[in-house]
């Protein structure tokens, strides 16, 4: 959905909506964003990963995604031994952080742990307005630890992210949000999530009259700690939170706001940080 691809080939368009090629000029912007995020929010991280574009179906099921968001999950079909194509053990990652939980599954953490990663994600969106990609890159920083630590971390990250995006010239409004849970019971889940202020989004204009979330900071409570059996020294499931940036949307918002001056604006902001 990039409106101003500086190196666009005349008439070039994706063959299917919600999937975008990234020209080199945009990749340069993404690299600046990556280093800006790492510098500000990933410093305490133990490790940063780049994830493959597929993930074990069992992991996504264990995270509870398939039961809550079946409408969004994409699966890999193949026939490695020939014959009819069928479901494989792989799905397309709907969120970056799902890659991380298996790394700590079944472990005991005596100190809070911060990890980050960038992942190519897929969601089977039903609409294709500007910024709503089906294939997109998510840069996520994840914290696991005791509830007070994780909650304080989430609040600090949210505040820091909003300040950074404001510095970059975006409107960066912070709003309470909910995930797109499926169906009737999903409406209850969504309302509970919103009323508990577990999910906050930072929004920005990505096209004229189109505002989208470009980042979110979520407190998962003990959901992933329980699902992946990550516990404290007493055996209680740990809490987790994440700060996630939608890199493609962030790029779109910056292009919309600054046009071809994005690199200069990013470079200038980073130099003053």
């Amino acid at each position, binding site marked *: 959905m990039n409106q101003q691809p500086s190196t666009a080939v005349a008439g070039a368009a994706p063959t299917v909506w919600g999937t975008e090629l990234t020209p080199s000029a945009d990749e340069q912007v993404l690299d600046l964003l990556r280093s800006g995020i790492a510098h500000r929010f990933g410093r305490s991280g133990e490790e940063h990963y780049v994830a493959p574009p597929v993930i074990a179906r069992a992991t996504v099921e264990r995270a*509870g995604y398939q039961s809550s968001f079946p409408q969004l999950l994409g699966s890999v079909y193949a026939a490695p031994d020939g014959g009819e194509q069928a479901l494989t053990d792989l799905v397309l990652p709907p969120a970056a952080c799902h890659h991380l939980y298996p790394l700590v599954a079944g472990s005991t953490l005596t100190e809070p742990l911060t990890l980050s990663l960038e992942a190519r994600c897929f969601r089977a969106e039903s609409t294709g307005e500007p910024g709503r990609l089906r294939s997109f890159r998510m840069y996520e920083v994840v914290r696991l630890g005791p509830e007070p630590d994780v909650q304080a971390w989430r609040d600090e990250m949210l505040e820091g992210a909003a300040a950074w995006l404001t510095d970059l010239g975006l409107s960066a409004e912070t709003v309470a949000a909910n995930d797109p849970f499926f169906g*009737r*019971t999903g*409406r*209850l*889940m969504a309302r*509970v*999530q919103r009323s*508990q202020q577990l999910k906050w989004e930072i929004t920005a204009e990505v096209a004229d009259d189109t505002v989208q979330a470009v980042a979110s900071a979520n407190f998962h409570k003990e*959901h992933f700690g329980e699902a992946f059996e990550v516990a404290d020294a007493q055996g209680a499931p740990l809490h987790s939170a994440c700060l996630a940036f939608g890199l493609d949307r962030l790029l779109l918002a910056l292009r919309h706001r600054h046009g071809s001056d994005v690199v200069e604006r990013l470079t200038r902001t980073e130099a003053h940080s």
Partner: protein
Amino acid sequence: MSCVQEQIRVVMKEFAKLSGIADGIAEGADLWEAGMDSLTSVQLLLRLEDYFGVELPDEALTRETFRSIRAMTEVLRTQLDREGSHAS
């Protein structure tokens, strides 16, 4: 104690996060502070609907409905009256 309220307590015992408090917690006490979470609220919703033979309206699918045994009792009573059900 109302019949509906007693039955809610019986149903609550089926859920790990609520079984320990189902008998003793006051009818007006905050269940979210006592162990209720979003997943449990969804499971409880489905189980209560099955148990009482009703389907709660969309406007009742809120955090407030599951805040206390009293709140659940009121919502269920209203729906039982509305649907003319005689589930005991």
